[in-house]
């Protein structure tokens, strides 16, 4: 069992002990009369458990996150440049070091060698690779002496870090334990302290949302900065072609991808907005309660289907069906030769449109329902037909909200991944033909970040710049949409 899990178990046992000791002590200091206590005995116990466990566990967590980074930084500075093979990077060497160190750890724990023997290991005398393979740790190539030395350093520093961790955390838990048990007296306001502690935990949970956003922005920002150090930003934003080449010197411009993304989204919206809007109008203005109770949930099933299903639907069903209509020359339905492969802008756009129908319709439904009935009654009372009322009264009143809904749908379409990965193709180009295969930002992120990736090459790092652009784009659309929707709702509240 590792040091960390032992430590966690020890802290938890101490906390449980503290709980019982403190509640006992509170009652006994009150002379057995619990009415003299400020709080219920449970609170004295919880207070002790809280002060024993939470500071210790918190420090442990921070330590576990920080230590590998610090050790790594130390080791990185000792690795000589000549160790980095041609076409490789310091990151790959470092992962070798880590693998060797982990392997040595296993060697010691299985008892193949003792701790001291591993320190004396020498690449000249022992075949480290075979030794590690013997315990099930695979190393890609033969172990260089410098790597072995770095790995030994890595192990030594990790060990030292762990001993310091125990030396700091155990006293911390003990101090918390002693202080909180001693504090368990009738005059101590245990409930207030415990509640303040719980409140702090609640605040922490709520701020995780902010932390996630910060994490998203920074994880992409740092790698994007690395990307722009390797690749000119003018080419990324204003270049004309996308041609990644893993030997280097690639054309990495976002414009062709952006064009594909926007084209597909526009087709999706052309399908989804009229259908969704008319469905919402019919359901909210014409349909009786029975039709509504039947059709609305059925339409919303479309929203609950995972996008991978739509992706496969595009690739296997819709794409070939479109090819049968627009392609295959004389064998096709129209005798045309316009479409050669199943993956195309139209394929992905149509399927994405189907996916977005319930999204548009349920948002518009809410908005149309929010238009006050008095407006409709006034118009109908003046002799307008229901459709005239809808077109001239209800829709203009609901327009800002509908625009917001369409913007939200657009942001969904831009960020959608699985449908375009399977249905849109992989060719980056500017073309106005909807039957051509084209590619999008999300597809390229997936293809640049899957498979063998090297986080020092611009071809991989470009995915982070693409991700950041996508994030900014969708965030902008969402903020505008939410602003419009919110502002509009206030009018009738």
């Amino acid at each position, binding site marked *: 069992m590792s040091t960390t899990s032992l430590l966690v178990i020890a802290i938890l046992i101490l906390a449980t002990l503290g709980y019982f000791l403190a509640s006992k002590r509170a009652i006994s200091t009150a002379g057995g009369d619990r009415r003299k206590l400020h709080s219920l005995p449970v609170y004295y116990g919880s207070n002790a458990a809280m002060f024993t466990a939470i500071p210790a566990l918190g420090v442990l967590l921070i330590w576990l996150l920080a230590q590998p980074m610090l050790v790594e930084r130390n080791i990185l500075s000792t690795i000589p440049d000549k160790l980095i093979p041609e076409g490789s990077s310091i990151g790959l060497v470092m992962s070798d070091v880590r693998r060797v160190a982990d392997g040595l750890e296993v060697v010691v724990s299985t008892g193949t060698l003792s701790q001291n023997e591993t320190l004396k290991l020498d690449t000249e005398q022992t075949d480290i690779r075979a030794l590690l393979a013997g315990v099930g740790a695979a190393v890609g190539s033969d172990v260089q002496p410098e790597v072995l030395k770095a790995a030994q350093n890595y192990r030594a520093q990790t060990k030292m870090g762990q001993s310091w961790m125990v030396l700091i955390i155990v006293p911390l838990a003990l101090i918390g334990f002693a202080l909180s048990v001693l504090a368990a007296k009738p005059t101590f306001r245990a409930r207030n302290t415990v509640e303040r502690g719980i409140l702090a935990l609640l605040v922490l949970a*709520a701020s995780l949302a902010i932390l996630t956003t910060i994490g998203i922005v920074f994880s992409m920002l740092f790698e994007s900065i690395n990307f722009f150090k390797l690749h000119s930003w003018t080419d990324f934003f204003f270049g004309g072609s996308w041609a990644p080449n893993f030997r280097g010197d690639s054309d990495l411009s976002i414009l062709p991808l952006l064009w594909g993304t926007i084209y597909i989204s526009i087709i999706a919206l052309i399908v989804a907005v009229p259908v969704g809007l008319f469905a919402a109008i019919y359901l909210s203005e014409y349909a009786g309660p029975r039709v509504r109770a039947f059709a609305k949930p059925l339409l919303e099933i479309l929203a609950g289907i995972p996008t991978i299903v739509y992706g496969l639907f595009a690739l296997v069903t819709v794409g070939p069906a479109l090819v049968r209509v627009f392609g295959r020359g004389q064998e096709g339905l129209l005798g045309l030769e316009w479409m050669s492969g199943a993956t195309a802008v139209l394929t992905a756009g149509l399927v994405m449109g189907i996916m977005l129908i319930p999204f548009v319709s349920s948002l518009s439904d809410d908005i149309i329902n929010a238009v006050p009935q008095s407006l409709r009654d006034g118009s109908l009372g003046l002799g307008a037909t229901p459709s005239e009322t809808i077109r001239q009264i209800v829709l203009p009143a609901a327009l800002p909200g509908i625009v917001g809904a369409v913007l939200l749908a657009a942001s969904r379409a831009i960020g959608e991944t699985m449908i375009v990965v399977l249905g849109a193709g992989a060719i980056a180009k500017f073309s106005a033909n909807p039957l051509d295969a084209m590619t999008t930002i999300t597809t390229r992120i997936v293809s640049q970040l899957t498979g063998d990736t090297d986080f020092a090459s611009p071809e991989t790092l470009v995915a982070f710049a693409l991700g950041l652009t996508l994030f900014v784009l969708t965030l902008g659309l969402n903020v505008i949409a939410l602003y419009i929707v919110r502002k509009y709702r206030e009018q009738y509240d």
Partner: protein
Amino acid sequence: MTDAIQKTEKKKSSLLQLDARTRTRNAAETRFKAYGMIAIAFGLLMLSILVFNIVTRGAGAYQQTFVALEVELLAGKLDEKGDRNLDDIKKVSTFGYTPLLSNALEAKVAELEIETDLKAKKMVGILSKSAAAQVRDYALNNPNQIGETVGFEFLASSRVDGYLKGRVSRDSIGNDKNISPAQLDLADALKAEGSLAKRFNMSFITGSDASDARPEAAGMGTSMIGSFFMMLVVLVLALPIGVAASIYLEEFAPKNWITDIIEVNISNLAAVPSIVFGILGLAVFINYMYLPNSAPLVGGLVLTLMTLPTIIISTRASLKAVPPSIRDAALGVGASKMQSVFHHVLPLAAPGILTGTIIGLAQALGETAPLLLIGMVGFIASNPPDSIATGLLSPNSAMPAQIYEWAKRADPAFYERAWGGIIILLVFLVTMNTVAVILRRRFERRW
């Protein structure tokens, strides 16, 4: 007055006969209503096409063609020394077992008096490539059976299976080097004699993925376990964190700019594309914290971050639905604010919170894009994990990622499995959503 009336030309108007303008207006009305109906019909039509597609294309994956053969486990080939030493038997690779299969097929053909000009080596082509491994496993587990004749049921190769299901025809295999018309004739003959038949294929539900050459052996089981561990992580992390965050925002947070920022943040996070969460997971959990690639733990963490906003939004709605009088009553009899929330408001909001959590989990279960970036594809997990720790940390796939993997292989036999996998995925989603609806109907209180 009378003059004035007489002077204006009398407009022909009748309640029984509509004038032109009313007719156009009524026609416009009918048209408008028809557009609405067409829109709904279009949506429902698409839904039914989709469902029809899934069911018809996926049902095939649950049926598989099997060939029944009696294989003689030749002692001379498997255990030359004859002492049944397991280490010696292990030395015979699956290649050593192929002749046994061709012998068995040859014997079968002779027994049933089927006429074929195929060589025995070619006959084996109608069997799955996993057949030899199946015999080997049997021999290793039952070394005392070596020398005996044992009855086996082998998977037929995917082409033969497709032929029985109508996916492969004699015309379509012109350039296919994996199957020849003569082999299909053999399959037909075996089918007529009853040794080759389709039956329910349990191993699609319980088995694990197989390599490109053996679509007939691929199954969803292992990826279901991967999905299960991810959902476990999501449940354990997202539920408490989401509920804690909602309680703070709904019950305790002062109205100030920090709270505003958190609220705007949460509603924006709910609309961030899922692939961005994948990039976050790759950068933070794998590149920065060195958590293992492809592990359900990492997938679960990414999906937790993705589901949190959904859970927070629905939990806040159900906390809001608890009337203030409950809080006031608790405070009135001397409870602290914290006690009123945890002892009274939270239990009353629990059904709503649970419903929201189940819906969030269902959404996470079907999510694919972030899993691609943390490496949960392109990996064949062969063995189910043996403990919770390995389940969380050893590489695995997940149901939607497995479906994507099959869809990418561009082989009709794998498409069939992808649709079959979708059926399993949808069964899970429908069950979860039904449970959520039932929970809401049964326990939600209207105040």
